[in-house]
């Protein structure tokens, strides 16, 4: 190899390296030409851009567009370059299992959710998707469009100290006391002493403590030994305390009810009725309707879930739940009729 050949080879390598750094800089975010030149010169020193850097930068952009199909846009108002598409430089590809995971994250942190804590995750997801080859991006968009619901964002933030105390009480099987502001506690929270058994989360994002009520001061409408789902964000921060008393070996069993309801054909005819309750059994009828049976202990939760069907659902039993629906219907009548 001649000196001249070696020089050309080294020069080509430097050019390639500079362009690669340019792409990497743009992957970090939109940048002005001065920022790009400064960043690359900081990396390459004397081997970076020459004095007439603006022309060399433009030449590099043209090469990236022509040779690799990169799309680099210029925002005139902000005077910044923006990497819109990596073209053939999209070097990241993922196994199908990771593409599934990406779809899961997309569904959980949807665009336009408006939650500030999601903003950085959205930026990360968009950046990862940008690194994928075009065909994989298309596959990802198709999968994403098939996913309809996002993660629930309702409810206030759960106090982390409260959550830690509740979890400790559950794990150590010890009684727990806390001040709680229930739906009907307008002014003051009341002190509840409970046997805690577990924490669950619902689709709308609320977290609940599943507990058996042992005592409440002042007394309210709650029945002692009732199984209650306490909203964790309604436990007054700083009020929860694990008590020394260990739980009895067997939990007082709450009353269990056989649930039976009918869904009209409009809802059930596709034969994909959802199972929201334990021991769900579904019978589809010739007219397109369906009868669902299940077992429940929490009638309040059952009502909340079945209300989503509106007037497409008729509850037959238990009678206690039918009564709850009658009260709800009477309330709705007062409001609307």
């Amino acid at each position, binding site marked *: 190899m001649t000196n001249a050949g070696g020089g050309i080879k080294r020069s080509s390598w430097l050019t390639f390296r500079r362009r690669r750094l340019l792409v990497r800089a743009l992957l970090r975010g939109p940048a002005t030409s001065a920022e790009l030149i400064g960043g690359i010169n900081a990396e390459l020193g004397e081997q970076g851009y020459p004095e007439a850097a603006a022309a060399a930068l433009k030449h590099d952009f043209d090469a990236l567009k022509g040779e690799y199909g990169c799309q680099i846009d210029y925002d005139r108002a902000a005077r910044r370059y923006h990497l819109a598409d990596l073209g053939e430089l999209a070097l990241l590809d993922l196994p199908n299992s990771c593409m599934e995971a990406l779809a899961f994250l997309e569904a959980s942190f949807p665009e336009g959710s408006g939650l500030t804590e999601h903003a950085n995750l959205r930026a990360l997801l968009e950046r990862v998707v940008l690194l994928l080859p075009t065909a994989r991006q298309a596959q990802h968009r198709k999968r994403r469009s098939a996913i309809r619901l996002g993660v629930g964002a309702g409810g206030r933030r759960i106090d982390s100290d409260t959550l830690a105390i509740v979890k400790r009480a*559950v794990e*150590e099987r010890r009684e727990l006391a806390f001040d709680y502001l229930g739906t009907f506690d307008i002014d003051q929270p009341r002190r509840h002493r409970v046997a805690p*058994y577990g*924490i669950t989360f*619902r689709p709308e994002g609320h977290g609940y403590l599943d507990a058996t009520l042992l005592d409440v001061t002042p007394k309210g409408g709650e029945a002692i030994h009732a199984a209650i789902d306490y909203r964790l964000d309604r436990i007054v921060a700083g009020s929860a305390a694990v008590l020394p008393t260990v739980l009895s070996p067997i939990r007082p069993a709450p009353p269990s009810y056989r649930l039976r309801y009918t869904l009209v054909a409009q809802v059930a005819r596709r034969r994909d009725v*959802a199972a929201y*309750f334990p021991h769900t059994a*579904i019978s589809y009828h010739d007219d397109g309707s369906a009868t669902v049976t299940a077992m429940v*202990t929490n009638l309040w*939760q059952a009502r909340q879930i079945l209300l989503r069907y509106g007037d497409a659902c008729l509850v037959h039993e238990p009678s206690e739940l039918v009564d709850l629906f009658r009260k709800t219907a009477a309330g709705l009548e007062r409001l609307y009729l």
Partner: protein
Amino acid sequence: MPDQKPLTQPERQRLLEGWLPLAQEANIQYGWALDAPALEAMILQAAPALAQAHSSFEARAILWVTYQLQQHEHDR
């Protein structure tokens, strides 16, 4: 769950009742098309991890991983 003892019937009932709404929403959201017994089995399998969840997102992620593991077992 805090320990690995078999669940009593009331414990199992409350566990399933608590998690089925979220599991069913995930079932719809991610297109799993699991029927009622399969959803219950998934919750029971995921129960120890679900007990450690700090948010509904974390719980969804646990259910999602459990589903992937079940599919992997099924494919083997």
